[in-house]
């Protein structure tokens, strides 16, 4: 049932992606329309230092993408003069004219700037003027994201003349995300208008838009505001924004907590099996996570080289593969080494520590140190729950994966026949073997299950963390903490412990001000765990009944 939800989420995101990609491709193609006004005159005046400033001011008023291309070339030092016509240096090193057609030299080949030919110089002083003009023109550009950031910059430029431009752009604007940004920009500019009524309307608009960006401006305006109605509107806006921010922060911290909890759960789920259930102290557990991350890296490399088109779907292949790879390695590790060390936990600790060192250095020698996994496009960015609060898709996926893995493990252990045999062997090995259960096979399969879970965890964690030989070491202490705090042999314990540590860590971190919040939060959690283990030495959910007396 949990598994079904994941598949549906993935399907939805894929569909969304297709529309988005389609949308972008469409308008882009249509931009360079044929009817560009004659820009040769202004371009000529641009190249003459004396008339450069006036030419820029004139071009600023023409809301046409071709003007934007001309001014950008001037700023980047890519504008040349060829046979008294303007020529722009393209990325491929060839010259094109203002309407985008390549200029041919005498031999009919696309012309390139002659050696030593200098581009049209831009006076240092005029640099910001051109910058300002470009922002103004970008607002009419093709790309929605560029329009949004241009509107944002104009909004905070305190340049009253920009109001007219913004109003014109707002009228033409269709993109649902760009519209509120433009309204916010307009309202921020109007805050400084002489007429108090306009100021009040602007303040209310900013309040309604929950504009965190304008908070500083609103508070400053409140100081000098004299008009009672405007003052009242300002305080109202500030209060609504503040209350919105409080809610948003709480939701943000809660999500961070849940996300960290899921990360801890994924790290320690495999350990809950190998250490919790089987009592094996596997110090190479971190390296099993690393194996999962490297499987993701290898699959990604294969996809980039062979199936570049379906690059984004490498992750769907990497996930099950990392489960298999880590499982197989676990099988080999158990059969080759750990099998001889049952009942001797401390020796297992040392041997697995040695195995961990071997894995780390071999990974470094084989893969080198500069490896990383890039999340597929449909994992980039995040779900904008509230304005300004983006929940990254990759972290949502990790929470989903943690719950799915937990559900799967619970069903396997408690509801399936195989799970029955595993629990039997772990609780009373001799009796189980008398009943015809081959304990050898169960031991190796259960250990392999533990390392396989770690592999999947590593593959998912590669989305948000590093992929390098050292990554195992950073996870190992946290993973053991969770399993010990959660209580040996109890899945529920691991869940409560990982989410407990995650959420309390993330609620504590913002509360501690100063330069070391992340550290003191982590130390506080450790002290809590140490204190807690005083009273419940066997963790949240200790074994019950007579066994408890024995275990003590």
């Amino acid at each position, binding site marked *: 049932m949990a598994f079904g939800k994941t598949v549906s989420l993935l399907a939805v995101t894929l569909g969304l992606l297709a529309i988005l990609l389609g949308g972008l491709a469409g308008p882009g193609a249509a931009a360079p329309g044929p009817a560009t006004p004659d820009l040769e005159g202004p371009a000529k005046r641009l190249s003459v230092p004396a008339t450069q400033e006036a030419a820029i001011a004139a071009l600023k008023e023409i809301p046409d993408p071709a003007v934007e291309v001309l001014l950008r070339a001037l700023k980047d030092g890519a504008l040349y003069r060829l046979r008294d016509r303007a020529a722009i240096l393209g990325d491929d090193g060839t010259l094109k004219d203002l309407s985008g057609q390549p200029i041919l030299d005498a031999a009919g080949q696309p012309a390139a700037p002659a050696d030593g030919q200098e581009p049209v110089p831009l006076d240092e002083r005029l640099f910001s003027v051109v910058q300002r003009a470009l922002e103004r023109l970008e607002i009419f550009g093709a790309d929605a994201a560029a329009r949004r950031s241009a509107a944002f910059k104009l909004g905070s430029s305190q340049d009253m003349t920009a109001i007219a431009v913004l109003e014109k752009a707002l009228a033409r604007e269709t993109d649902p995300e760009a519209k509120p940004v433009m309204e916010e920009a307009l309202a921020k500019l109007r805050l400084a208008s002489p007429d108090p009524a306009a100021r009040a309307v602007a303040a209310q608009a900013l309040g309604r838009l929950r504009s965190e960006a304008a908070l500083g401006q609103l508070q400053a305006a409140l100081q000098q505001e004299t008009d009672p109605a405007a003052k009242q509107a300002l305080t109202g806006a500030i209060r609504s924004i503040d209350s919105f921010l409080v809610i948003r922060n709480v939701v943000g911290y809660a999500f961070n907590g849940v996300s960290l909890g899921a990360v801890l759960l994924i790290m320690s789920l495999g350990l809950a099996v190998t250490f919790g259930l089987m*009592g094996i*102290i596997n*110090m190479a557990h971190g390296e099993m996570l690393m194996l999962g991350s490297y499987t993701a890296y290898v699959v990604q490399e294969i996809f980039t080289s062979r199936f570049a088109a379906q690059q984004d779907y490498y992750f769907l292949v990497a996930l099950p593969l990392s489960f298999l790879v880590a499982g197989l390695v676990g099988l080999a590790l158990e059969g080759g*080494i750990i099998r*001889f*060390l049952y009942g001797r*936990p*401390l*020796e297992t*600790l*040392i*041997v697995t*520590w*040695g*195995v*961990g*060192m*071997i894995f*780390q*250095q*071999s990974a470094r*020698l084989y893969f080198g140190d500069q490896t990383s996994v890039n999340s597929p496009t449909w994992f980039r960015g995040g779900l904008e729950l509230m304005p300004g609060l983006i929940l990254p898709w990759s972290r949502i996926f990790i929470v989903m994966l943690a719950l799915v893995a937990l559900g799967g493990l619970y069903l396997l252990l408690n509801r399936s026949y195989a799970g029955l045999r595993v629990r039997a062997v772990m609780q009373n090995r001799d009796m189980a073997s008398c009943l015809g259960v081959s304990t050898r096979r169960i031991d190796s399969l259960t250990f392999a299950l533990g390392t396989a879970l770690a592999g999947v965890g590593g593959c998912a964690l590669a989305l948000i963390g590093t992929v390098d030989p050292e990554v195992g*070491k950073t996870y190992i*202490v946290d993973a*053991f*903490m969770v399993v*010990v705090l959660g209580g040996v042999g109890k899945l529920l314990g691991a869940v409560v412990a990982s989410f407990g540590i995650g959420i309390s860590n993330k609620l504590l971190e913002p509360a501690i001000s100063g*330069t*070391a919040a992340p*550290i003191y939060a*982590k*130390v506080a959690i*450790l*002290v809590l*765990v*140490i204190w807690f*283990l*005083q*009273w419940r*030495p*066997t963790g949240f959910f200790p074994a019950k009944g007579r066994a408890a007396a024995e275990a*003590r």
Partner: protein
Amino acid sequence: MTLGGGPRGDAQRLWIAAFGIVFVVLLPVANALGLLSDYYLNLFGKYLCLALLAVGMDLIWGYTGILSLGQAIFFGAGAYSIGMNMMLEGSGKGVYGEPVPDFMIWNQVYQLPLFWKPYKYIALAVASSMLLPAAIAAVIGFLTFRRKLRGTYFAILTQAIAFAVWLMVSRNEMKLGGTNGLTDFKSVLGFSLSSPATQRALYIITAATLLAAFLLSRWLVTSKTGLVLQAIRDNERRLEFLGYNVAGYKIFVFAVSAALAGLSGLLYAPQVGIITPSQIGVLPSLEIVIWVAFGGRGTLWGALLGAISINWMRSVLTGTYPRLWPIILGALFVGVIMFFPKGLVGFAARLRSVVPGRRRLVEAGGVAASKAEERPL
């Protein structure tokens, strides 16, 4: 571990004497005569400090069966105590020429924090380097042993404490030099650290202390307390019913091993010239366990051999195989534990028993004749 003197006892004394002569006398003389370079003497000085640390670990784990994954905290407490003393002794000669240690300057700390002040006096520093770790161990022991916290739980708990201590000491706000730790020591007790004579003196003190600690541990282990400790390892609940306050013994041996670790830190810092949080955290504590296991736990010689051999191999291998040494060391750990469960000493013992040579003499049955006969304990 026979109680009686017996022939094995004499062999032991022979070995200890040999060890004493070679390490405490021969090496420093060779260095003085220029046969052995300062670099190697200093390196052996470092190994002997770590051997001292391993002996402490062997007491708590090898003999009493309590795996503490936090021994590096006590080592760090000792090393930082003498480190702070040496920093204060060298104050004013640092890069900034200020009366306060250099690292405080770039942390915008301009007068000495309170907890640094007592370390100006060498006596307090030396005392703190042993009493502080012993006190920490006693508190941890009091909190855990009385609540019957045992086995892997105690190990994971001490690992968590080590992790927390590492996190805190790495912070620059703790005014202990952050990840830089304490470095650039100029002198100890007024003797300049750069002169070979001081280093040789430090080496001799280390070797002598190790010998003394070894003898002290041997006496402890062969006394009745030693018996009780090993009984704790074998069958702790039985002991309780025999009337032993087991928690008290555990706290005692934990404090002794912590004091030995602190002492090892005290001797380590001046010889190596730097002490940083990276020697205090989770990983160094694990390595100490591996030295003792590698050498053979439950035998004092095992701890000694394990610490010296692994650290010597690490120094050589990082030089000859800069890219392969972790693999070689990892394979070694797996190999020894799998094939020589009793470690190097166990391996040597097995060799000896296979080789016919001298059989162990056991006075068979003559005891029954006169039951009042005097028997050395």
